[in-house]
């Protein structure tokens, strides 16, 4: 019994040292994996290990059968990986909004084109061309067109 305890304590210290020495690597990846073994007709386990990748190599650190140690390692990994996960979540959200902006800009451009205008970058272009097409001339806005918007301000929007 005492022997088991000391083995567990030794393993715990080794695992803690490993986590401290490899914190930079484990910030980006690594997880606690549970596995079972078959011995004759019996299913043994769970056995825990810390799985991670070192370059292209898949590596693992054996954690033994102690669920408390496995939980401690899981919590340490969560703490180490939290800023990275938060950052990735924020980037995903920004990308989602950028796609929404692109969709609404495309819809805006489609509506502008109906009036002879178009979007270029963020600018609305084609005011002069649009005015030139107006049968009623430049001074008065023709009904049903946006040509008269040009009378409001001479700067391009």
């Amino acid at each position, binding site marked *: 019994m005492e022997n088991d305890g000391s083995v567990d304590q030794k393993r715990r210290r080794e695992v803690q040292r490993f986590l401290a020495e490899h914190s930079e690597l484990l910030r980006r990846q690594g997880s606690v994996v549970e596995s079972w073994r078959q011995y004759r007709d019996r299913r043994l386990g769970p056995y825990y290990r810390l799985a991670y990748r070192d370059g292209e190599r898949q590596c693992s650190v054996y954690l033994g059968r102690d669920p408390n140690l496995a939980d401690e390692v899981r919590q340490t990994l969560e703490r180490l990986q939290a800023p990275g996960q938060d950052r990735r979540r924020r980037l995903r959200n920004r990308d989602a*909004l950028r*796609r929404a902006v692109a969709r*609404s800009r495309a*819809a805006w451009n489609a509506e502008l084109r109906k009036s002879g205008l178009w979007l270029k970058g963020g600018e*609305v272009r084609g005011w002069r061309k649009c005015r030139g097409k107006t049968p009623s001339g430049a001074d008065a806005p023709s*009904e*049903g*067109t946006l040509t008269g918007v040009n009378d409001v301000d001479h700067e391009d929007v």
Partner: protein
Amino acid sequence: METAPAKPRPYFVPDELDWEALPRAVQVAVDELVQPAYVELVLQASTALERAAGATFVHLLFLELLEQFDLGREVARCIAGRADDTEGVSPREEELRRHLRLVSQKEKAGKFLMRIHEFRLKHPHVFATGLES
């Protein structure tokens, strides 16, 4: 300590955006700033053109808000001298430039909407007969 319940997801928020993952401060800001803009510029728009321009403005406003929050956090982290011990880094020049481009695009969409608004005041008959007719 009791935490305040999360704000309900506004209906204009894109499906692929993880609303629950947004910081509470951003959720409140969306509720207080973006939602009224959406109501005024999209829901109350009288033409499809205004609605489309309004939706672009609203999405740009939302994105600006999100980026401002992120930039603020990064600057705070940098000032606190913790930029190197986490994955976050101080805002790079390119990020700031991209943010300024975004603000400029929002301003252009806003200017267009203002121009349409002024045009409406000047020539109400055009809108009475319908822009798309």
